């Protein structure tokens, strides 16, 4: 009987699925194997830092999670969706739930910061009222402004995107991602093309937003100190597999350093 009573608890734990589950993921570009049967599970609300030398397949892995790159083999379940099996229509619907921050901010330079943020609403809706802030419904405009405020740029709303600094542009890109109302965040070196201080601010912002909103975050950074400070868990990639996986607070910087080498001669 005691066993039977214990069962509901067990099933409750089972019922809380991981935000991400990857099984046997493979990818090769020609003769070069990038991922060689990779397995990974991520609990909801965790901030995972993905590390690895250049060419280790970090960016490839991140893009495969939303099938911007198609895997050769393996299964991926993200937010309860079997990503690998999605047809084009459902895949598009699924992508709406995942916010991506790229190394390049990818803003439309000639448009205002506010219009760029508003574009995030296209994850839910289309039509002329999503193209420019001047055409947008009041509610969308207010939400876009609130997203800009969250990244500390409400006062730059009407400034043209190409007149913003690198750090500010990346903030606008993050605001656009928030406008999308994502359930999961992927960030591919959001700090790479920024000066050290702006880079740190961006990493801090992303980590804080993920924590505040209870979102799962997978972030790639080439800066060891950012990786340690702005993650809960560190996953190291080498030779197409995960060779390191531990909580960030227990990670040994000296051990991590090997994942950051090989950068200069590969770039």
């Amino acid at each position, binding site marked *: 009987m005691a066993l039977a009573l214990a069962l509901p608890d067990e099933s409750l734990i089972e019922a809380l699925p991981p935000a991400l589950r990857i099984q046997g993921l493979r990818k090769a570009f020609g003769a070069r194997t990038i991922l060689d049967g990779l397995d990974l599970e991520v609990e909801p609300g965790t901030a995972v830092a993905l590390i690895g030398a250049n060419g280790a397949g970090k960016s490839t892995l991140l893009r495969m999670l939303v099938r*911007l790159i198609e895997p050769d083999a393996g299964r991926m379940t993200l937010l309860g969706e079997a990503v690998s099996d999605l047809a084009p229509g459902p895949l598009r619907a699924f992508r709406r739930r*995942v916010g*991506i921050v*790229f190394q*390049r901010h*990818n*803003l439309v330079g000639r448009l205002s910061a506010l219009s760029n943020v508003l574009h995030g609403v*296209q994850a839910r809706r*289309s*039509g002329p009222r999503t193209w420019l802030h001047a055409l947008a419904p009041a509610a969308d405009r207010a939400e876009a402004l609130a997203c800009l405020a969250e990244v500390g740029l409400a006062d730059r709303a009407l400034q043209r995107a190409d007149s913003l600094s690198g750090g500010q542009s990346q903030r606008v890109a993050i605001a656009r991602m928030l406008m999308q109302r994502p359930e999961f965040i992927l960030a591919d070196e959001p700090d790479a093309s920024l000066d050290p201080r702006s880079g740190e601010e961006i990493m801090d912002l992303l980590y804080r937003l993920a924590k505040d909103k209870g979102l799962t975050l997978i972030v790639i950074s080439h800066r060891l100190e950012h990786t340690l400070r702005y993650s809960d868990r560190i996953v190291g990639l080498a030779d197409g597999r995960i060779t390191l996986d531990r909580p960030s607070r227990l990670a040994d910087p000296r051990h991590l350093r090997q994942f950051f080498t090989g950068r200069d001669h590969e770039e």
Partner: protein
Amino acid sequence: MSLPSPAVAVPRWDRPNALTFMVTVLALAFLVWSFSNVGLSWERMQRGFPALGSILDRMFPPDLERLPQILRSLLITFQMALVGCVLGLILAFPLAILAADGLSPHPVIKQLARGLIAFFRTVPDLVWALLFVIAVGLGPAAGVMAIMVDKIGFAGRFFAEAMEEVDKGPQEALAAIGATRSGLIFSAVVPQALPSFIATSLFSLEKAVRGSVILGLVGAGGIGVELKVAFDLFDYDTAATIIIAVFLLVVLVEQVSNRIRKRLL
């Protein structure tokens, strides 16, 4: 101290291969034949220049008697160019989207759109004018249609190229969140291509104004009709007034469009 003499002599020229040589000789022969075939002769030029001088002599001073009528025709000509140009630009835009790499919904549609644009562009506007004069009758309406088709061909190509050349980053970012094709085009592509669109549009208008003068010669309305009549009646001093008026209009349009271009870009 003498320089060491090189082991091999370096030729001054590449020796042409047989094919290059043959093509060059044939091209030169064709050029010579062309000169003899167009009937351009020294005697003709000697006769022609004095004749041109006498026409010019009869043109000046220009006759201003018909100036009000000429200005009315000039206005019609400009309006014909403007309307034809605006219609052409409006129709060129969707066609350019269908013809642009990365925006076209299907490779077959892309090739069809490109073929249509190329066809509109390569057939001269005068030929379109002849066709539309037959189709809709004499008058400015035929001119408007001719200019419209010509501008679809001209602007369609440049609009498509402008949209292909924009930074692809914003498009990828929006595609990644599941935005629709129209969303990508109007949020990411068009704002970036806008300066190029404006430049092309202004240039189209300049071209249309110049072209619209000629269209009247085949009966497609506007000042060209007046010019043809003046020449047919040997009324050279009126023709001079028309030519000067056209010149001033073209210069004016070019100046204004330069101003707008500088202001906007």
